[in-house]
């Protein structure tokens, strides 16, 4: 499988925080969802991929090349709108038309209309969610083969997010398009992502197809002795609460089969994140 992005041995440190020897692939034609707690290194990783940050060491290739100064191949939406607050939607469109060789003004205007944003409105007149939508409209209108979204849906209401995800899916209809989507709203990733990468304290602790994760992982709840009876080897993480214990298990079907008396629930991405971040490794 061809990769849109290949990261090998990435190291980046800021004081006592570091990404240490990280490897990551974003397969061409797929959406990779990036999850992790605040400060896990998601934004740093994204900035290193785009070239906004310098890596201490490691290799990053985008479409097979280390040169990231090819205009228009990558579209990026960071966690806050990077467009000038005093510019109107129309001025932004004109600017981007000059900047990007494959700018599609009609698509930009279509997306702006779909998002309900007047081209005459200036960015500072819009809410955070609306200004993020302008940035999304820009990034989906210049023919980018790779779009990177860093918390792009934060600040959007559920209806807008739903509409946004529809647009993401429409963009991904083209096999050449790939996407890296970092989000704390894991339900969005459960809906659209093909792969999930879980970053924890600067290290990737899970990188698997989403469907496999949601199918295999499970949560067992009960008394401590009851839960520990399933064996440490089956438990990824354990969280002790006031009156019960929750365990994240790697293969819920196997656990269910071996311990039919236990209730083994499916694990959402939220469950997995909470149990790994707040629980104790087994």
């Amino acid at each position, binding site marked *: 499988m061809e990769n849109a992005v290949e990261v090998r041995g990435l190291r980046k440190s800021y004081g006592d925080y570091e990404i240490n020897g990280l490897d990551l692939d974003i397969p061409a034609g797929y959406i990779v969802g990036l999850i992790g707690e605040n400060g896990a290194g998601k934004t740093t990783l994204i*900035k290193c991929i*785009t070239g906004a940050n310098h890596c201490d060491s490691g290799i990053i290739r985008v479409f097979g090349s280390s040169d990231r*100064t090819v205009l228009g191949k990558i*579209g990026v939406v960071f966690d806050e709108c990077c467009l000038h607050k005093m510019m109107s939607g129309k*001025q932004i469109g004109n*600017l981007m038309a000059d900047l990007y060789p494959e700018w599609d003004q009609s698509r930009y205007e279509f997306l702006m209309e779909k998002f309900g944003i007047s081209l005459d409105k200036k960015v500072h007149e819009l809410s955070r969610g609306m200004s993020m939508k302008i940035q999304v409209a820009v990034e989906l209108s210049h023919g980018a083969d790779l779009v990177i979204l860093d918390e792009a849906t934060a600040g959007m209401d559920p209806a807008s997010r739903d509409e946004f995800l529809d647009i993401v899916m429409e963009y991904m209809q083209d096999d050449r398009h790939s996407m890296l989507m970092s989000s704390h709203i894991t339900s969005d990733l459960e809906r659209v992502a093909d792969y999930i990468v879980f970053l924890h304290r600067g290290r990737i602790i899970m990188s698997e197809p989403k469907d496999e994760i949601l199918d295999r992982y499970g949560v067992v709840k009960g008394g401590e002795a009851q839960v520990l009876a399933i064996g440490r080897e089956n438990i990824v993480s354990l969280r002790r609460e006031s009156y019960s214990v929750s365990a994240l298990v790697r293969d819920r079907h196997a656990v269910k089969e071996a311990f039919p008396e236990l209730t083994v629930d499916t694990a959402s991405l939220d469950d997995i994140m909470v149990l790994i971040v707040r629980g104790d490794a087994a």
Partner: protein
Amino acid sequence: MTLVRKDLILIKSSIVSLSIFAAVLCFLLKVPLITYILPAVLLVSLASASIRWDEQCNWDRYITSIGVDRNTIVRSKFVTGAILALIGTAIGLVISISMSYVYDFGDVASMVTACPLGFIIGIIVSSVSVAVYYVTGNSVKTQYISVVANIVVISALITLSMIAAEAFGDLTLVVLALAAVAVVIVYTCYLVSCRRFAGIDL
């Protein structure tokens, strides 16, 4: 040029207000040399202001991420500064000609010969300010360093110009010598800015 156009769109209204302010100040001060230089010096301050605005909305992070070369970003600031210096010089000339009808400002030919001083001083101030900004970042300290650096550079140039004017007795020669010094200062500032901006995380 797209990045320069973006800067000019953003600072368009400030250009108008600063030009009016410069005109009022020149009419009040009635000093020919100040009239040639002041509009350009005031306008070029917008070049470093545009870097601050870019930083406030993380524009550089975005523009770098989509593939714009960092040196291109730095170059755009120097070009913006040069354009502002040119606009300021033109405004200075218009103010000088207007004032010549009210005060004794000499003939138009000598004004045209002297007005490049505005451009030269303006482009030097702009380049030094931009370089100081890239080197020290956005802080109150930056503004002080920028003002002090510009005062030192401009004072040195004016002193040298006055000595040269007395020695040569020809204003054109002085302007040409200043232009040559300006090229060296601008290029040095550009190299320092590129080097600094290339190494920072955005």
